[in-house]
């Protein structure tokens, strides 16, 4: 009975406190947030930016409490939210350009119709 108990306890501990991970994991998530900020994430993807920041904070806390596995997961979840925020920002800008151009085409078409009547198209 005793050895099993000890084995169980060991197992539980290793799950939480393996080797201290490379601090670069946090740095990389931090840099991803900065890149997302520069891409306009706060305007175009505020939800993802918020998750990215919250998860990085939790990852830092996890690191301090030596919950390394959870901390690494959280750092990566933070980073992928920044990545998504960058993509969303770029797509929001391209969507805006499409809408602008569509509008100016409609305006030009209306102007030309007014000038040339039915002969235009």
């Amino acid at each position, binding site marked *: 009975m005793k050895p099993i108990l000890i084995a169980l306890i060991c197992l539980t501990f290793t*799950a939480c406190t393996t080797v201290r991970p490379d601090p670069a994991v946090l740095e990389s998530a931090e840099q991803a947030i900065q890149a997302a900020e*520069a*891409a*306009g*994430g*706060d*305007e*175009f*993807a*505020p*939800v993802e*930016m*918020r*998750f990215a920041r919250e998860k990085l904070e939790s990852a830092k806390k996890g690191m301090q409490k030596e919950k390394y*596995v*959870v901390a690494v*997961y959280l750092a*990566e*979840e933070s980073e*992928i*939210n920044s*990545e*998504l925020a960058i*993509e*969303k*920002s*770029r*797509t*929001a*800008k*391209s*969507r*805006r*350009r*499409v809408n*602008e*151009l*569509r509008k*100016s*085409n409609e305006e*030009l*078409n209306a102007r*030309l119709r007014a*000038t*040339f009547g039915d*002969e*235009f*198209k």
Partner: protein
Amino acid sequence: MNRTLTKITLVLVLGLLSACTSAPKKDLALERVRGELDNLKSNPELAGYAPMAVGEAERALRKAEMASGDDLYRSYLVYMADRRIQIARTMAEREQHEQALDVLEKQYSEMLIKASQLEADYARKDAEQARLLVATTAEEAQRAREEKEQAQQNEAESARAAQSSAEEAEQARRLAESRASEAEYARLEADLASQQITSLTRQLENLQLRETESGVVVTLGDVLFASGQTTLVEGGRSSLEEVVDLLQTEPDKKIRVEGHTDSRGDADANLLLSEQRARAVLEALVSLGVASDRISALGMGEDFPIASNEDEDGRARNRRVDVILLDN
């Protein structure tokens, strides 16, 4: 005595084991994420775009599906797969926009070219009319001379018309080019604006946000309505502005407004109250600019508490309106 103890231990150990192996809730999450990827791949407007990102999402999802081991690891993999799919979807949308931009730019210069052709046609017709007029009113000799002159003039004019039509085509090209640089400026301006927009984030920090299976939920606390009332309190509408800012960042997603109450009072009355409140919030959001065809309201009554109904603190948390940005 000793035997019963052994039995209890055995039951406990079995219980623990089954808790690890059967995890139907996780599988539901996985199924939902799988559904999202299938959705993206079969979407007629987006299918075929961003193949690399879709492939990456597919690999992330497989990894989650194959994973054995602890729940923490698996839910992490499911989360990563979900985000990869959203990234792929966003990139596919952008590629679609870029294609639309090409088409629109082509349409623009085609319109300008067509317009310059029509203008040249008009000029030719005018010249023809002038020549006929002169021909019928002048003396014979005069006419002969004038016709000669006119013919020369005509030649010159049609040369000019041809010249001006060429010039106009050139102008159309230049316009198209200047449009391209305008787009570039617009992009630069957007970048600058976004650098100055951090104030918006600060506002959003006041909102209660959480991620759920159905999407991101914004919880509006117990401050919008007076007790028993179904119209927004004064100032309630303006406090919804930051919610609208957030909703407008996801213009393609549907929105569901859910009213909830605490458990005091009659359940039917609570259901009605929650529905009327959800509707009031919906109307306020629409009046602040949210498109009415993407938003719906629902009364949930008292059946979905997020805190205990035993004390006033918990009841206050249960009296709320959830605004949900639906994933699909």
